[in-house]
């Protein structure tokens, strides 16, 4: 019997090894295989994640590696900061909040895997995600099927019109953000000729389109639309070509550092047009990278009043610095606000499960870092604020209406 057992094991494991021993490098191969197997075992062993039974588990997902890691990580950090703060005060109804952040790598396929993973884990009673509209789109199906309350950070207007009842979006969609500066430059500054630049992403192209519609409605003309790549850093040829159009306004729908690089190179070439950018550019880095002199006068929209305008915001920036060792990243404040909305829904929930949270999600009203939040039937924020800033003396200053 012993022999049978031995033979059997040999049979099970034998093929792989026997196949390789035909090679003359027998010893090395055996060793290498063994090293490899133990490495895999080690990896699997470290994979388990414990969470106590009465913890409130919330999921979050955004790209944390790859080209968009900066934005995704900042959002996750912001949310983490709020939940930390909450736990210091004793959590929600005395339960500790565990924030489980998973990386979706800005890839729709991996996004669906993350969504399914959250859905399968009954402990997860709410999700903040995803950052990219393209990743959120196929994931919505999965979340709604398992009744997962979802706070969406992605800003594509389409997302909220697909009829899913499990989602809310505290952040203003791209319509508001594109409309405000268009109105301002046509009405207040009287500028009538614009050129649009965008990076051919959902966000960049979408917001440039909204600006265009509103700019034209305000009596302006758009002299040209230029597409670039999201990773481009050299815009000199593009700018020289824009100069031929001689515009009053350049609206750029793109990310960072592209906004900064574009403006810097635009000023170097002596193109004096009014520059306008979306929320991503609202960082200190923008001004450093452009240079204070060149950045002067640039307009930028953002969902928040200035960081030093209220004690909460100042406190937020300081806490972020203390917790992560760096100033809040581009979407940190949005992540924080999303976490506030989710926590408020959990707080109001009668039962600490998905149904309980879902029942409260749409009706929740909360005073967030973004200002007061309440949702309409589609789950859009009814009061989503938007502020316009201008760079003055190397600082962002609020443009008063």
């Amino acid at each position: 019997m012993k022999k049978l057992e031995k033979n059997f094991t040999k049979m099970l494991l034998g093929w792989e090894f026997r196949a390789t021993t035909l090679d003359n490098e027998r010893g090395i191969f055996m060793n290498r295989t063994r090293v490899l197997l133990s490495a895999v075992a080690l990896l699997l062993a470290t994979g388990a994640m414990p969470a106590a039974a009465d913890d409130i588990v919330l999921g979050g997902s955004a790209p944390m590696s790859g080209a968009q890691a900066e934005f995704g990580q900042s959002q996750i950090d912001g949310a983490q900061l709020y939940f930390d703060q909450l736990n210091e005060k004793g959590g929600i109804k005395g339960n500790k909040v565990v924030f489980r952040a998973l990386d979706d790598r800005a890839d729709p396929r991996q996004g669906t895997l993350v969504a399914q993973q959250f859905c399968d884990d009954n402990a997860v009673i709410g999700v903040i995600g995803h950052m990219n509209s393209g990743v959120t789109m196929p994931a919505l199906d999965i979340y709604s099927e398992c009744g997962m309350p979802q706070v969406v950070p992605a800003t594509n207007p389409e997302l909220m019109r697909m009829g899913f009842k499990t989602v809310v979006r505290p952040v203003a969609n791209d319509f508001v953000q594109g409309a405000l500066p268009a109105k301002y430059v046509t009405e207040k500054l009287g500028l009538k000729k614009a050129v649009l630049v965008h990076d051919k992403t959902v966000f960049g192209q979408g917001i440039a389109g909204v600006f265009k519609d509103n700019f034209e409605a305000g009596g302006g003309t758009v002299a040209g639309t230029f597409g670039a790549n999201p990773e481009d850093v050299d815009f000199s040829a593009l700018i020289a070509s824009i100069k031929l159009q001689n515009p009053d306004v350049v609206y750029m729908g793109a990310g960072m550092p592209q906004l900064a690089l574009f403006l810097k190179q635009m000023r170097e070439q002596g193109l004096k047009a009014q520059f306008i950018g979306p929320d991503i550019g609202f960082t200190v880095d923008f001004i450093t990278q452009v240079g204070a002199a060149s950045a002067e006068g640039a307009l930028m929209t953002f969902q928040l009043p200035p960081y030093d305008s209220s004690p909460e915001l100042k406190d937020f920036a300081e806490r972020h610095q203390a917790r992560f060792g760096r100033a809040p990243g581009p979407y940190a404040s949005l992540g924080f606000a999303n976490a506030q909305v989710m926590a408020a829904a959990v707080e109001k929930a009668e039962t600490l499960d998905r149904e309980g949270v879902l029942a409260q999600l749409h009706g929740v009203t909360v005073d967030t870092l973004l200002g007061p939040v309440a949702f309409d039937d589609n789950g859009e924020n009814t009061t989503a604020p938007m502020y316009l800033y201008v760079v003055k003396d190397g600082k962002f200053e609020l443009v008063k209406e």
Partner: protein
Amino acid sequence: MLDYLLQQLIFALAIGAIYGLIALGYTMVYGVMRLINFAHGEFFMLGPYVYTFIFSGFIGLGGLAPALDSVIAIVASFVIVGLLGVAIERFAYRPLRAYGRLAPMLSALGMSIVLQSAVRVTIGPQPEHFPAIVPSQPIAALGGMVTTVQLGILAAAILLMVGMALFVNGTRLGIWIRAASESWTTSSLLGIRVNRAVSLVFFIGPGLGAMAGIMYASYYGIMQPTMGSVIGLKAFTAAILGGIGSIPGAMLGGFLLGAIETLGTAFLPLISGGLIGTEYRDVFAFAVLILILLFKPAGLLGETVSEETTVAKKDY
């Protein structure tokens, strides 16, 4: 219109110089190893990070004259990144030599992920401001304008390229490299230590990449962990365009790619009446590349490919 064309050509030269410089390192490594080194772009990315680290270290220690500090930091970055290249070759590529060409390619890809992620988790994913080494001043020239940084980059790149050409063609070490890229077997029979030639190439290639990275960062004023991936692909394209393995070819390919991209952006919308926008720039560049290769299957200055250089050859 002529002004416009001249202006665009100046821009093409500046960007082409950087492409050429990084393609140079790429092509040297390829010449000796026949390796599509996907990690090459990461050495480019490491350059400005190492520079900043050393430069700020110097300033922290009191520093010498600012100009001298920069020069020392530049040289040190070359050496450090070069040594890293040598180490990576030793541990990640050399064990795979007997296993064809796909295994080292995978290793290079893995290395690229490792280097980029390592910088991302240690320094952070955000783009960092990189102060210009030479202050940027726009100068009016030929009816257009050019910045001092652009001029500086062009000069430095040409200097490095010429220096490299002289080194490879005129010195003993250069002869090693050329011999090794002709044939490993023959070179070793002739008493050339091929491993040393390989190490040398893996010192110079990444070092040059780091130089290009520093120029690039000081030109655009930023550095970030992902900056190497796009540019690595461009360098590969430029090297192929010029004929991979050929040093003058890499320079030519770099300038040509710069010109194709710039002119594509500048003239595609004009010529097509707005039908084809600037977003088709890369399509245009790739299409030109394919066309050139159809007529010159070994790139512009490449030697006709012998069976030796085919991926297909037994190498798997």
